C-alpha cells in the first residue's frame, strides 16, 4: 500500500509543479537557515576531546589584592596563573600529568640577511603537553623531562611550518636561530587540529577555532631567554622592573593544565588546590580568600564564552524563521489538499478508511519534506560556504559533520510532517456523503 500512496503522492505533486516547488523551496530555505546556524553552534560548542574532557582540569586562583575584592565582581582578565603558582603545580600538583604554557612569538633569522624572516607564533610549555593533549608526531618526538629541567634549546614545529621551512623531509636535528639563540628541532607535530582550540583559548593566534601552535619550546628555555609572553598579561599588584621581577610577580600570564587518571579524582584535586592555597596564604599571598576553582574542558570553554551570544542569537532567529516556513507550507498544503476534497469524498465512499486517507496524504507531505530536506542540505552547504568567506574563525566552524547531516534530514522530515499534520487531518475529516452530489 505504501508504494501506492507514494505513487499517488508523486502524481499529485507533479500535477501542480509550481505549488510543489514553492513548498519544497520554502521548507528548504527554512531548513538551510536553521541547519547552517545550528552547525556553527554545534561545532563551536562541541567537545574537542571527548575521551578526556572530564579529566583535563584548569586550576584558577584569584590572586588580586584584598582591598578591592568584591565577591560578586570578577576580574575579566584574570584567567591565567602566576608563574610561581604554575611552577608549584608542575612540581607537586595532582594528577598523572601536568603542564603549563604561555604564548610566545619568535622569528627565525635567515642565514643571509637579504632573505625574509620567518615568523613563528607558538607556545612555551613542558613535555607533558604532548601526551596530555594527544598531540601526534610526524617526525621525531617530544623533548624529554630532562630537557624541561635544563631548559634545553630544543623545539618542536607544526607540520605546516616545518614544510614551509624545510620541505617535506625530516628536519629533526636541524637548527633554527630564534631569540638570538640556536634551537635544535626534535620533532614535528602531525595533523592535530582540535576545534575549539581548547588547549590555548586565551592566547592562541587565530581566535578560538582557527590557527595552530607553529612552535613549541621548553618553558624554561623561553623564560631563561626572557621571551615575553605573546598574549594577555594581567597584573593586579605593583611590581618591580625587569624580567626576574616579572616572573616573581603576581601577574597572571601562564595557563596551567592537570590531567587526572579519572574524573572521579576531581575532589582530591580540589582538596590539593585548597591545601596549596592555604599554605600560600600562610606565606601572606592570596589574601582575597576567593573560591579556588577547577574547570574541566567543557566548563573552561563555557567560562571563556567560546560560544558567542551572536551565534545563539542567529540560531534562535533562524529557528523562528523555520517555524514561519512550516506555517507557510502548512497553508500551501491546506490549499492543495482542500482542492482535493472531492477526491477524498470519492475515496471514502469507495471504502477508504480515515486511516488510509491519512496515510496517503502523510506520504505525500513526507515526499515534500524529503525533497525539501535534500534541497535544504544543498542550500546548507552553499550557505556554510558563504559563511566561511566571512571570517577565519567562522571558516573553521562552518563545517557539516555526520551528526548535523542526520539532524538536517530529521529537521526537514519533521518540519514537513508538522506542516502536513493539520492539512492531512483536515483532509481526513471530509465526510463522504457531502461530496456525493455534483462537484
Amino acid at each position, binding site marked *: *500500500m505504501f508504494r*501506492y500512496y507514494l505513487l*499517488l503522492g508523486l*502524481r*499529485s505533486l507533479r*500535477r501542480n509543479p509550481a505549488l510543489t516547488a514553492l513548498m519544497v523551496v520554502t521548507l528548504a530555505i527554512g531548513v538551510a537557515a536553521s541547519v547552517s546556524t545550528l552547525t556553527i553552534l554545534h561545532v563551536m560548542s562541541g567537545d574537542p576531546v571527548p575521551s578526556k574532557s572530564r579529566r583535563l582540569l584548569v586550576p584558577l586562583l584569584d590572586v588580586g589584592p584584598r582591598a578591592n575584592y568584591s565577591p560578586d565582581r570578577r576580574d575579566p582578565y584574570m584567567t591565567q596563573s602566576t608563574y610561581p603558582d604554575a611552577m608549584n603545580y608542575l612540581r607537586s600538583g595532582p594528577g598523572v600529568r601536568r603542564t603549563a604554557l604561555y604564548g610566545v612569538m619568535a622569528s627565525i633569522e635567515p642565514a643571509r640577511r637579504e632573505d625574509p624572516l620567518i615568523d613563528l607564533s607558538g607556545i612555551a610549555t613542558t613535555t607533558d603537553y604532548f601526551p596530555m593533549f594527544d598531540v601526534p608526531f610526524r617526525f621525531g618526538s617530544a623533548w624529554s623531562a630532562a630537557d624541561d629541567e635544563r631548559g634545553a634549546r630544543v623545539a618542536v614545529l607544526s607540520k605546516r611550518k616545518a614544510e614551509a621551512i624545510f620541505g617535506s623531509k625530516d628536519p629533526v636535528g636541524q637548527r633554527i636561530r630564534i631569540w638570538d639563540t640556536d634551537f635544535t628541532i626534535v620533532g614535528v607535530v602531525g595533523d592535530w587540529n582540535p576545534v575549539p582550540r581548547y588547549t590555548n583559548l586565551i592566547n592562541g593566534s587565530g581566535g578560538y577555532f582557527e590557527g595552530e601552535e607553529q612552535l613549541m619550546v621548553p618553558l624554561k628555555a623561553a623564560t631563561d631567554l626572557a621571551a615575553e609572553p605573546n598574549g594577555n598579561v594581567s597584573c593586579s599588584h605593583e611590581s618591580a622592573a625587569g624580567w626576574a621581577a616579572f616572573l616573581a610577580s603576581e601577574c597572571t600570564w601562564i595557563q596551567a593544565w592537570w590531567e587526572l587518571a579519572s574524573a572521579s579524582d576531581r575532589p582530591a584535586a580540589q582538596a590539593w588546590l585548597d591545601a596549596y592555597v592555604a599554605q600560600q596564604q600562610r606565606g601572606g599571598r592570596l589574601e582575597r580568600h576567593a573560591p579556588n576553582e577547577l574547570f574541566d574542558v567543557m566548563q573552561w570553554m563555557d567560562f571563556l564564552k567560546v560560544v558567542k551570544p551572536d551565534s545563539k542569537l542567529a540560531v534562535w532567529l533562524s529557528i523562528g524563521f523555520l517555524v514561519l516556513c512550516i506555517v507557510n507550507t502548512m497553508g500551501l498544503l491546506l490549499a492543495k489538499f482542500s482542492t482535493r476534497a*472531492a*477526491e477524498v*469524498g*470519492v*475515496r*471514502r*465512499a*469507495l*471504502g*477508504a*478508511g*480515515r*486511516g*488510509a486517507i491519512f496515510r496517503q496524504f502523510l506520504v505525500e507531505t513526507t515526499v515534500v519534506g524529503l525533497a525539501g530536506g535534500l534541497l535544504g542540505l544543498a542550500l546548507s552547504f552553499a550557505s556554510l560556504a558563504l559563511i566561511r568567506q566571512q571570517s577565519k574563525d567562522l571558516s573553521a566552524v562552518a563545517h557539516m559533520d555526520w551528526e548535523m547531516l542526520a539532524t538536517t534530514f530529521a529537521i526537514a522530515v519533521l518540519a514537513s510532517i508538522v506542516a502536513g499534520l493539520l492539512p492531512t487531518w483536515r483532509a481526513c475529516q471530509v*465526510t*463522504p*456523503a457531502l*461530496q*456525493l*452530489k*455534483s*462537484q
Partner: protein
Amino acid sequence: MLHMKDLTKVYRTHMIETHALRGFDIDVKEGEFVTVTGPSGSGKTTFLNIAGLLEEFDGGDYLLDGVSVKGLSDNERSRLRNEKLGFIFQGFNLIPDLDLFDNVDVPLRYRGFNAAERRRRIEQALTEVGLASRMRHYPAELSGGQQQRVAIARALAGTPRLLLADEPTGNLDSQMARSVMELLEQINTAGTTIIMVTHDPELAMRAQRNVHIIDGRASDLRRGPSLVQPHAAIA
C-alpha cells in the same frame, strides 16, 4: 439484502431540527432493481447516504446483507462499503489525476487484492462497459456517457452485492442516458442488486419496483408487473 425498519434521521442546526427521515421502512430483496423517486427535499439522498453507509442514522434498524450496521466504527463501515457496495454518482466523481485504469483501481487497492488480481478485475470491468481500449486515457478526454461507464466499471470491479446509483443519468443526454440504463439493467440481470435514485419517471417505470419518498417516508408504488394494474386503474 437491505432492510430498514422505522429509521429516523434528524439534521440539527442551532435553530432548527429537520426530520429528513421518519419511521422509514424499506425492504429490498437480493437481485431486485429498485428505483427511488420523490420531490427534492423528500429524503431521497439521505436514504441513499444511509444505505451506502456514508451517513449514520439516529433511530431504527438497518440490516445490510443480514448484518446490523448500527454502531459500527468508521473503519468497519469503510470496509463494508468497500466489499459489499458499489456507487455511481450523478457527477461521475472520477478522480481527474488518475487515468481510467487507476480510477477503477481505487476501491481494489483498499480491498487489498494483489496486483495480478486487480489487473484482471480492472480489465474485465472496463471490457464490460466497453472501454477496455481506453484504459490509459484520463477522464477529461472522455464524453459524459463514457465517464459514467467508467464510474460503473469502478463500482463493478469490486463485485459488490449492492449497487447504489444517485441520478446516474442526470448529467447525460437522453441517448446516453438510455445506454447507461441498459448497462445497469444488464448488470442487474447478472445478479447485482441495484437501488437507483432518479427524477426521471420514465426511468423509474422501467424498473421492476419503484419506491416513492415523501416527507421522509417511503411508499411502494409498484411491486412487480402484477401490481401495475391496480395503480393504473386508480390513476
